[in-house]
């Protein structure tokens, strides 16, 4: 590991991607993720990489599709409305079983929405997003350090399982500056993938990168195979952070920037004698279901803190099986709750319990 440097969250993504061996970036300008593209535009030409400002988000994701088919590390970044445009291409990439990284620095929606931070793309990110049976590996950073760390992890997981990965950040973490320790740069090695299109060189049968299966038995088989891989991902790669959960009687569930606000509230509630802890999903897909299911035996109620009208709360309710109350503390449209608002929700959930 190198020294600590002060970086913006969006820049940390870009530098971490380069250090993870990514040499191809395709994007289209949109607030609040522009720094990723700007950083790539500066760096890529100096290291023999590709920075290309595409004519649209649609073109950008299909350029990603092309590079991914050749087996090289590749990424795009955007914000909510732009990520909606990418969904067609993401579905094709998932259907073709290719790895890549898509970054969504979320802003408020729906529609053109606003440019302030949000977490309202949770459904889109974790339930597929485009058409058909598929998932992305979805990682949710809560600090600039995690913007960097999870970018590297996203590339590794995408490669390992041949599944596109998404870094689901938000405008706050994208824009804020924090000290970050960056991983050493990986050597860029081009080991030929057994499925990639690189030219047959006359030495093998042709490879076809494709998501079209006109015979329904074949398509069904493909989807079953993909879901076996998803099961392995859920088993091996589910990540979360537990905070003050050891003796907790109440459990806050929050990710990204909402988890940071919530931690302050948890500490404040503890001072008032309320035994509360926090579970922070780091992988939103696979969702840390088991740790929440296990918490049911320990706690009296859950509180979801989200920058949306309540999206992750559905997964929390599924994981906890209706056995405990699941309350919601939320702001939306680009607004962020204060620690006091979360504290008030914790007090309400605890119902005067101390």
């Amino acid at each position, binding site marked *: 590991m190198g020294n600590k440097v002060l970086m913006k969250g969006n820049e940390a993504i870009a530098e971490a991607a380069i250090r993870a061996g990514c040499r*191809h970036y*395709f994007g289209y300008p949109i607030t609040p993720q522009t720094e990723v593209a700007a950083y790539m535009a500066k760096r890529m030409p100096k290291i023999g990489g*590709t920075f*290309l400002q*595409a*004519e*649209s988000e*649609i*073109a*950008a994701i*299909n*350029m*990603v*599709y*092309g*590079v*991914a*088919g*050749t087996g*090289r590390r*590749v990424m795009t970044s955007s914000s909510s409305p732009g990520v909606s445009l990418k969904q*067609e*291409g993401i579905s*094709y990439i998932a259907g*073709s079983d290719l790895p890549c990284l898509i970054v969504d620095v979320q802003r408020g929606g729906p529609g053109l929405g606003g440019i302030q931070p949000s977490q309202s793309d949770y459904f889109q990110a974790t339930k597929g997003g485009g058409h058909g049976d598929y998932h992305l590996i979805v990682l949710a950073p809560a600090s600039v350090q995690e913007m960097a760390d999870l970018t590297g992890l996203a590339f590794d997981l995408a490669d390992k399982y041949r599944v596109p990965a998404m870094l689901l950040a938000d405008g706050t973490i994208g824009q804020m500056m924090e000290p970050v320790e960056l991983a050493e740069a990986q050597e860029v090695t081009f080991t030929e993938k057994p499925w990639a*299109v*690189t*030219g*047959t*060189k*006359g*030495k093998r049968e*042709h*490879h*076809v*990168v*494709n*998501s*079209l299966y006109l015979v329904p038995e074949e398509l069904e088989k493909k989807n079953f195979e993909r879901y076996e891989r998803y099961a392995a991902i859920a088993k091996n790669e589910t990540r979360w952070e537990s905070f003050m959960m050891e003796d907790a009687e109440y459990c806050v569930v929050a990710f990204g920037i909402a988890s940071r606000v919530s931690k302050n509230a948890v500490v404040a509630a503890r001072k008032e004698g309320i035994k509360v802890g926090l579970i922070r999903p780091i992988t939103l897909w696979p969702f840390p279901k088991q740790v929440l299911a296990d918490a049911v035996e320990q706690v009296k109620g859950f509180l979801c803190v989200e920058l949306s009208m309540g999206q992750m709360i559905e997964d929390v309710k599924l994981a906890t099986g209706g056995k405990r109350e699941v309350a919601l503390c939320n702001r939306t449209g680009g607004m962020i709750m204060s620690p006091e608002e979360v504290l008030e929700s914790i007090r309400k959930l605890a119902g005067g319990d101390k």
Partner: protein
Amino acid sequence: MVVFEKPKSLTDKEFHYCPGCPHGIIHRLVAEAIDTLGIEGIAIGVAPVGCAVMAYDYFKCDMVEAAHGRAPAMATGIKRSLPENIVFTYQGDGDLASIGMAETVHAATRNENITVIFVNNAIYGMTGGQMAPTSLPGQVTQTSPYGRDVKTAGYPIKVAELLSSLDGPAYIARVAVNNVKHVLEAKKAIQKAFENQIQGKGFSLVEVVSACPTNWGMTPQKALEWVEEKMIPYYPLGVYKDKKAEKEAE
């Protein structure tokens, strides 16, 4: 003595195309260019959405299947990743000139070093004969049952003319495959579009005026006559842009 054989870079898979469809001829011309230039081992083809959607089964080189209209974007990614390989797209008129117009124009204006084979048969074939961006004024299709009315449906897009107005692209030509003379000219243009890429000249597009007997509701013979009498007057054949030739003329 062998006087006629299948190009080496085509697989043994039987074409699914309708009787009398010129896609078979155009596939063959592409394969002949690949064979002649000896590039099968480094070629990567991008199949479209449309009648040629299963082109990946017919070419022996590595192939990918793009989303509708996105072939030039996908080809851009492949070429940027593997600049030493030869990357081509094979697209129809709905794919290239309607849903994929932005990708086409921008790949051309970037002078992306790829080869684009554009088959213009003035109709959406795969979906059963709807009006295309290249359907002629008055042409009857499933979605222009009273004939294409330019007052409401606009005019056909002349892709070769449109793209040759850009500074970017290296080579833009329009050919046809309705008779032997035209097929031989088409063969030369397609080969040149590949040679340009090998020489690093950049974006080279060959528009091939083709026919769709099935959806035009004509016999194959009648369809070829219609190409000569109706299509070619609207879509004149020729080289619209050739950067090298322009340079030599200076």
